[in-house]
C-alpha cells in the first residue's frame, strides 16, 4: 500500500497533462469511434495516431529543450523557431553543396547544424547567464532577426532538398512500417532519458532554478548550468529544424517552425511545469506537446470554421486549464471529502493516497510566487 502510494506520488505531477489529453481523446472518440483506426498505406501505418505522432515530432523535441530552459533560467526562449530555421538552413546548404548525397553527407550536415544550433544557444545563453538579461528579452533579438539570417544563408531563395535520403528521413524507409520522424523522435526522447539518468542534469537544473545562490554555495555554477540549458535548447532546435526541413523537402525560412515557441511554451505549462522555473517534468512536457497536437487536430476534426478556429482553441484551453486548476481541484476534493463523510460517516482525514497527491500537486503548482 505505502509503496503504491509512493509510486503514485512520484507520478502525480502528470495528473494535469494526462487528464487534459484524455479529455481531448474522449471528445475525438465521441465525434467518431474510428478515431484510433490504423491502416497500412505503402507498408506504413496510417491513421490519426500516426499522423499525430508524425505531426508533433518537432514540437515534442522543442518542448523538451524549452522545459530545461524554463526550469533553469526561469524564463522562456522565444527564438526556437528562428534558431531551427537557421540551423536547418545550414544543413540544407551543406547538403546542396556536397555534390553526391550519401548518408554521411546528411549526417555531417546534421552535425554541422547541431553545432550551429549550439552557437545560437550560446549566444542566447551568454546573454541570459553572463549578462543577466531576462530570457524572453535576450531571445527576442534572434526572434526579430533570425529569419533574415536564415534567409540570407539560403541565398535569399527557398532551396529544395530533393534527395532520396532526405526523402526517407521525412517520410519512411521502405520496409519500416513507422514513419522516420516518429522513430527519430523516440530516439531523441530515449537519448534525453539516458542523459537524465546518467548525469545530474536534473538535480543541477532544478537547484539552479529554485535557488541559484544556494546552488552556487553547493558547488554548482548557476551561470554554466543556464548556459548549458541554452546549448541543449540549441541542439533541440537544430534537431527540430532537421526534422522539419526533411519532412518539407524544401527550406522555407519564412514558415519553417513559425510561431512554434507559443506551442512549446504552452506544452511546458500543460505538462504541469511552472513557467517560473524550478522543478520540471519532461514527461509532462512531452505529453503536453502531444496534447497540443491533438487539440489542433481536434479543432480541424470538429470542422470548426477556419475563421473561428482560434477562438475555439482559446475556449478549449481555458476550459481545460480551469478543470485542471489547483483551486478547482482543491474545491472538488473538498466536495469529495464531504460526500465521503456523508457516505461513510467516517473521519475524513484518513483519506488515501489520491487526495494527498492532489494536495501535494496543489502545492507545487501553486508555487510560482
Amino acid at each position, binding site marked *: 500500500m505505502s509503496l503504491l502510494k509512493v509510486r503514485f506520488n512520484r507520478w502525480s505531477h502528470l495528473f494535469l497533462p494526462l487528464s487534459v489529453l484524455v479529455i481531448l481523446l474522449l471528445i475525438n472518440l465521441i465525434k*467518431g469511434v474510428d478515431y484510433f483506426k490504423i491502416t497500412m*498505406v*505503402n507498408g*506504413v501505418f*496510417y*491513421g*490519426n495516431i500516426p*499522423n499525430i505522432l*508524425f*505531426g508533433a515530432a518537432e514540437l515534442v523535441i522543442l518542448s523538451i529543450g524549452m522545459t530545461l530552459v524554463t526550469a533553469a533560467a526561469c524564463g522562456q526562449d522565444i527564438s526556437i523557431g528562428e534558431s531551427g530555421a537557421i540551423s536547418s538552413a545550414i544543413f540544407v546548404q551543406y547538403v546542396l553543396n556536397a555534390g553526391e548525397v550519401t548518408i554521411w553527407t546528411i549526417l555531417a550536415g546534421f552535425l554541422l547544424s547541431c553545432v550551429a544550433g549550439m552557437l545560437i544557444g550560446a549566444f542566447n545563453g551568454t546573454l541570459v547567464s553572463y549578462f543577466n538579461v531576462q530570457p524572453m528579452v535576450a531571445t527576442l533579438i534572434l526572434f526579430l532577426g533570425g*529569419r*533574415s539570417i*536564415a*534567409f540570407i544563408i539560403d541565398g*535569399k*531563395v*527557398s*532551396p*529544395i532538398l*530533393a534527395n532520396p535520403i532526405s*526523402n526517407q528521413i*521525412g*517520410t519512411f524507409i521502405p520496409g519500416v512500417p513507422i*514513419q522516420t520522424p516518429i522513430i527519430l523522435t523516440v530516439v531523441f526522447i530515449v537519448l534525453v532519458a539516458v542523459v537524465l539518468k546518467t548525469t545530474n542534469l536534473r538535480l543541477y537544473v532544478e537547484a539552479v532554478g529554485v535557488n541559484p545562490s544556494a546552488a552556487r554555495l553547493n558547488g554548482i555554477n548557476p551561470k554554466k548550468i543556464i548556459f548549458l540549458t541554452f546549448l541543449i535548447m540549441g541542439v533541440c532546435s537544430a534537431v527540430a529544424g532537421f526534422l*522539419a526541413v526533411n*519532412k*518539407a*523537402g*524544401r527550406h*522555407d*525560412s*519564412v*514558415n*519553417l517552425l*513559425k*510561431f512554434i515557441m507559443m506551442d512549446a511554451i504552452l506544452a511546458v505549462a500543460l505538462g504541469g511545469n511552472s513557467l517560473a522555473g524550478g522543478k520540471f517534468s519532461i514527461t509532462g512536457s512531452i505529453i503536453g506537446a502531444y496534447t497540443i497536437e491533438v487539440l*489542433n*487536430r481536434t479543432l*480541424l*476534426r470538429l*470542422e470548426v*470554421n*477556419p*475563421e473561428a*478556429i*482560434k477562438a475555439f482553441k482559446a475556449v478549449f484551453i481555458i476550459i481545460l486549464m480551469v478543470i485542471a486548476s489547483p483551486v478547482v481541484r482543491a474545491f472538488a476534493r473538498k466536495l469529495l471529502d464531504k460526500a465521503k463523510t456523508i457516505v461513510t460517516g467516517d473521519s475524513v482525514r484518513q483519506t488515501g493516497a489520491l487526495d494527498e497527491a492532489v494536495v501535494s500537486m496543489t502545492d507545487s503548482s501553486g508555487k510560482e510566487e
Partner: protein
Amino acid sequence: AAEELIRVGIVNLPPEESGYRQANVEDMSRVFSRENGYDAKQTNTADVNEQMAAAMGYIRDGVDYLLISAAHASGWDDALLAAKRAGVRVILFDRAIDTDPSNYEAALLSDMHYEGQLATDWVLNNVPEPINLILIRGQLGSAAEIGRSAPVLNAAQEGKLNLVWDGTGGDTWSLEEARKVVEAAIAAGKDFNVIYAQNDGMAQGAVQALEAAGISHGKNGKVKIIGFDFNRFALRNVQAGYWDADVQCNPRQAAQIDQWIKSGNIPAGIVYQEEIILDTDTIIDEHIENYGINPDPGKGVITR
C-alpha cells in the same frame, strides 16, 4: 550629377516574408538604383505603424516619389494626405490600398481576386463533376487570402462546386498546416478531387498528406492540385504532371513604374498586371525560365 538623381522612398514588406516578396524587393532594389538615376531607400516591414512611420519619414525627407506596397489595405488616408500636402507623389505597387483613388497618383497591382478567378475557372472547366474541393487558405485576412478565396466561395455558393473542407494556416502560409488540413479531411473520410491551396508551399504540404495516405493526384490521379505564385519547383511539379495547375503572381513591378516615372507619363488610377495560369498541358520550359521565382530544381524533378 547627384542633384539629378530622382529621390524615391519605397515602403515594402519584408523580403523574408516569402520567395515572392524577395523577388519583389530585389526587383525594386535593382531597378531603382543609382546607375539607373535613382536615389532610393527601401523600408521593409509588415507592421502597419512601422510602414506608416516610414512613409511619413520619406515625406519629411521630401522624396520625389513614394512607392508603397501596403501590409494592410486600409488606414492609409492620413499618410497619403500628408504626402499630397508635402508634394510627394505616391505610386502604389503590388498591394492595393482601400482609399479614394485621388489620394495617389497611380497603382500597379497584382489582382488577387483575378488570380483566384483564374484558378476557379480552371477548376470548373477541367475537373469532372461532381467537383469536391478542399480549400486551404493562407494567412487569414491577408489580401491574397481574401482575393483568392472569394471566387471559390462564390462558386460554392452558386452550387458550381462542393466545398468539402475549408482549412487554414491561421497566421502562416506553412506547409505543415496545409498538410494537417488535408490529413484531417482524409481522416474524416471526405471524398474530394481538388485541392485548392493558396500558395505553392501549402499545395506541397497537401500533396505530402495525399502521398502519405496513398491517394493519387496530378495529371492521371484522382485529386487535382492547384497552387499559386509560380515558384519554379511548383511549375516543375505541374510540368511533370505531379500537380495540375499553378497561377502566376507577378512580383516584378519595378520596371513598369520606372518607365512611368522616366517618361513622366503616369496613368491615373489602378493598373493591374497581367497574370496567367499554367497547367500540365500548357506549361513549357520558357515559362518556368521567365516567370518563375525561386531556384529551379531542374526538369523532371518533383518535390514530394
